[in-house]
């Protein structure tokens, strides 16, 4: 980029500006006000509203600042009589067909048209004829249209084409009949669609869920951080009298630019869902009753204490028995505290996670985990301190090639997908996928490999073999056996050469890889591919604070900051049968890879303490006490995003009912259990304590001492596979009612491709019997050719999934 500067004069001020920049960019930077509607710094220039007209000397007519490149010696007047006359005329013209219905318009008070009309319009219009009316379209549950108000700036159309990557909205007809339309009456389906609400300068596109809820000037604006994906988009949360009314993006060029996903925008609705837990409850004689906090906390603490003493007594007895027997054998002594476990949601704040592990470890148990949907832990000791993206989010748009494994990045991390999309647009980047099904992307994909989940590692091994061939390096011992004799195909070789030849390249493991039963194998192979092709190796972690959970020590084998010395170690949940369990923001029926097994384990525990924002049937069934917790908007806390960036935020409103911030609940529990070091007065103190331990951490995704891998051969003929649908990932999302009405919200069903269905003798919309081990369910069948042969696709985390077993286990599908 040439940084040749030119000097121009605007309103008598000399300004230096890069040659070729548009005048409006220069005036914006110099803080000189030029009115505009169609111009937006993140969109292409359309120059169709003409509101930005300014006088440029030597030009015969006023010129649009948004489409006029600056040139040396240009003299511009934004306030001269000629400029003003032009602006006035355009303003009057734009208002001709505008209904001027501000009192009943949701945009009133924050409307660009209102503001500009105040500054540049006349009080009276010369236009007295009838105005046009445009019928509104129903474009889905998130956006209300009021198209008579549209001023045809086409920002929404350009957003679809340039940012969202799907051309859904368009402008049809012309002249007075021109209107914004979808092709047929169709729902706008982009996962970023809500951004058009912010872009629309008038009240033509407004947020449906918060419609008519409040006026802009009645709301308070608070900075916050998105609580769902590993991006940590920056938000402004708007509240009215202490309630969250809506969420909008907070610009941060390094993270989310000017956008947020629909998930981050509309999930707040879950905060006020009907099943919000608003007071502490305990279960006595199978009856749930509301109690006050003191009683509930005492009940919870006593529960843990009694489990501990029972166990200790049992052990003393054991000891005396074994001594009296005097067998001379070493008795395998179990630590009584091993009977205590904690499962924590990776969407919890850093402070909550840190305190939960601190509490558990000070009680003597290391049985804490945030990896709820992971099932292969075999290489956990080789895992990095914190699995992270390996690079900055911003750098993703500079990529020349990327390989994503087990990732539907478009739906899971829309903001990351947007950066990748930019890489394809700007650098013609080759982005490839190896997935357990075909996903659609909104950018050109170099290779979109889809194989059944049981073949995923074998497929990746082919790419790894190609990578070693291309690099001519020796295959290290731990891979030798797995890679020998493999014959990579053209497609695999092409991927490797794209990664090898590109200047900026990356290999990323997505959340499906992380949940995969062969995760350790996938990880070793992915890392090898990255090293052999000089690519950055990274992870697209699952939740808002997965990275933070590793730092906070919410894993059984490592303490905070990945410490292993003097740290109480524990085992993974599947290997335990705990007597007391602490659940932090976890819903047993939806948040686990095998919800059924989880529910059974919980049913056997004598005490289950659930710190939860929501009351649910599954918790009533399994827990003994429910402590109402605050949601992300109601607590202070911090998240660490995938690039390792710590972001702290404040609570923006009081928690619903008697709910309390999770960190405070854990603090009090610590005190009630007589543990030292639970005297924090603010969440900042908790964070700083962890932060000081993390000071010397250098992020590095290199695997240490990777074990020898074995590619698993043929498993059962049909294996279950599934992902977590975009709007089901956590308790808040599952209750966000408007998101749940979109096309991306999913209900449970089983998907097979046509060949598999005919092999099994089942047909579209049949109700089929699905069996996993001892469990079974009747689900409806959808024929979907994006599912590979050998796979039965059933989404995780949706209602009904708890009836079945392991999300990646063997499965049978039969005709009823």
């Amino acid at each position, binding site marked *: 980029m040439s940084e040749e500067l030119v000097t121009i004069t605007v309103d008598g001020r000399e300004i230096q500006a890069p040659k070729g920049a548009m005048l409006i960019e220069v005036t914006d930077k110099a803080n000189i006000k030029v009115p505009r509607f169609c111009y937006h710094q993140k969109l292409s220039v359309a120059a169709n509203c003409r509101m930005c007209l300014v006088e440029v000397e030597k030009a015969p007519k006023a010129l649009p600042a948004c489409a006029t490149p600056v040139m040396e010696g240009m003299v511009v007047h934004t306030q001269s009589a000629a400029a003003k006359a032009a602006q006035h005329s355009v303003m009057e013209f734009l208002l001709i067909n505008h209904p001027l219905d501000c009192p009943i318009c949701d945009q009133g008070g924050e409307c660009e048209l209102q503001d500009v009309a105040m500054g540049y319009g006349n009080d009276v219009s010369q236009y007295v004829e009838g105005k046009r009316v445009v019928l509104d379209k129903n474009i889905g549950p998130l956006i209300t249209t009021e198209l008579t108000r549209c001023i045809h700036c086409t920002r929404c159309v350009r957003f679809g084409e340039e940012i969202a990557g799907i*051309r859904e909205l*368009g402008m049809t007809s012309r002249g007075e009949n021109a209107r914004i339309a979808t092709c047929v009456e169709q729902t706008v389906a982009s996962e970023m669609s809500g951004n058009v609400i912010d872009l629309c300068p008038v009240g033509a596109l407004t947020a449906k869920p918060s419609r008519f809820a409040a006026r802009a000037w009645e709301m308070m604006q608070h900075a916050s951080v998105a609580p769902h994906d590993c991006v940590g988009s920056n938000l402004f949360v708007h509240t009215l009298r202490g309630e969250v009314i809506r969420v909008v993006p907070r610009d941060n060029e390094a993270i989310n630019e000017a956008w947020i996903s629909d998930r981050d925008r509309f999930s707040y609705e879950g905060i006020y869902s009907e099943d919000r837990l608003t007071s502490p409850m305990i279960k006595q004689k199978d009856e749930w009753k509301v109690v006050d906090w003191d009683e509930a906390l005492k009940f919870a603490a006593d529960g843990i204490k009694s489990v501990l003493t029972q166990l200790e007594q049992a052990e003393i007895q054991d000891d005396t028995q074994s001594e009296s027997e005097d067998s001379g054998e070493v008795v395998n002594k179990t630590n009584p505290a091993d009977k205590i476990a904690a499962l924590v949601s990776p969407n919890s704040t850093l402070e909550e996670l840190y305190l939960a592990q601190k509490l558990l470890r000070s009680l003597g148990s290391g049985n804490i985990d945030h990896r709820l949907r992971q099932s292969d832990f075999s290489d956990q000791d080789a895992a990095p301190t914190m699995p992270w993206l390996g690079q900055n989010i911003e750098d993703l748009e500079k990529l020349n090639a990327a390989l994503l494994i087990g990732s539907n990045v478009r739906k899971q991390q829309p903001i990351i997908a947007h950066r990748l999309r930019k890489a394809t647009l700007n650098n013609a980047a080759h982005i490839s996928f190896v997935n357990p099904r075909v996903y659609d992307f909104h950018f050109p994909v170099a290779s979109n490999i889809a194989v059944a989940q049981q073949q995923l590692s074998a497929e990746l091994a082919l790419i790894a073999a190609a990578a070693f061939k291309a690099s001519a390096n020796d295959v290290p011992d731990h891979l030798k056996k797995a890679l020998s004799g493999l014959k990579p195909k053209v497609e695999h070789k092409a991927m490797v050469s794209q990664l090898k030849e590109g200047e900026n390249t990356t290999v990323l493991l997505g959340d499906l890889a992380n949940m995969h039963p062969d995760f350790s194998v996938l990880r070793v192979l992915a890392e090898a591919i990255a090293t052999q092709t000089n690519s950055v190796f990274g992870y697209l972690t699952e939740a808002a604070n997965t990275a933070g959970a590793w730092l906070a020590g919410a894993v059984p084998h490592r303490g905070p900051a990945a410490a292993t010395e003097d740290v109480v170690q524990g085992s993974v949940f599947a290997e335990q049968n705990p007597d007391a369990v602490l659940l932090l923001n976890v819903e047993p029926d939806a948040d686990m890879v095998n919800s059924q097994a989880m529910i059974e384990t919980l049913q056997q525990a004598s005490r289950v303490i659930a710190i939860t924002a929501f009351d649910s049937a599954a918790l009533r069934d399994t827990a003994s006490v429910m402590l109402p917790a605050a949601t992300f908007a109601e607590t202070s806390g911090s998240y660490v995003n995938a690039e390792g960036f710590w972001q702290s935020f404040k609570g923006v409103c009081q928690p619903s009912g008697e709910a309390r911030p999770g960190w405070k609940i854990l603090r009090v529990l610590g005190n009630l259990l007589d543990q030292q070091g639970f005297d924090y007065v603010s969440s900042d103190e908790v964070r700083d304590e962890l932060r000081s331990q993390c000071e010397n951490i250098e992020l590095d995704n290199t695997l240490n001492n990777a074990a020898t891998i074995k590619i698993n051969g043929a498993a059962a003929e049909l294996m279950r596979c599934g992902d977590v649908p975009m709007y089901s990932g956590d308790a808040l999302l599952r209750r966000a009612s408007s998101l749940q009405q979109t096309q991306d919200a999913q209900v449970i069903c089983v998907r097979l491709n046509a060949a598999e269905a005919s092999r099994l003798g089942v047909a579209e919309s049949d109700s089929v019997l699905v069996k996993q081990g001892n469990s079974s369910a009747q689900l409806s069948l959808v024929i979907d050719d994006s599912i590979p042969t050998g796979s039965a696709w059933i989404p995780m985390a949706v209602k009904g999934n708890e009836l079945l077993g392991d999300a990646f286990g063997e499965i049978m599908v039969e005709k009823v």
Partner: protein
Amino acid sequence: MNTTDTQLSKQSCAEIDALLAKFPAEGRKSALLGALNVVQHENKGFLTEDLMDAVARHLDLAKIEVYEVASFYSMYELKPVARHNVAVCTNISCMLMGSQSIVNHVENKLGIKLGESTADGRIYLKIEEECLAACAGGPMMQVDHVYHENLTPEKVDEILDGLE
């Protein structure tokens, strides 16, 4: 692709591909106007949503892009119309030469208004938006692809009666 999607005829595809060959490979949208002409002509003078979708697929465009273009230009009919397209020019020159009386005459004769088709499916009276660039011969009208100039009511009768 859904098998129930409307397909373009072989003939149309060939004609559209010939158009495409005239533009650079990345400029497939450039062939859109021509493609719509071809398809409309084959479909007896009007486009349907299914046909526009088929054009979108053939040219690799979003459906809405095709719809935008088809609704912008008045030469495309988006509703079923009768088989003969009769367009009386009402732009300035023709208006000065008395096009209004020609329009009135045609409307009375056919018993329909501008923008309507006769019940027997014979004649569609199009609302012409543009000057048809035959100002010297105004008032004029276009019948299907043929221009008729210096119109008088008698001449109009003769032309219209001659349409099957």
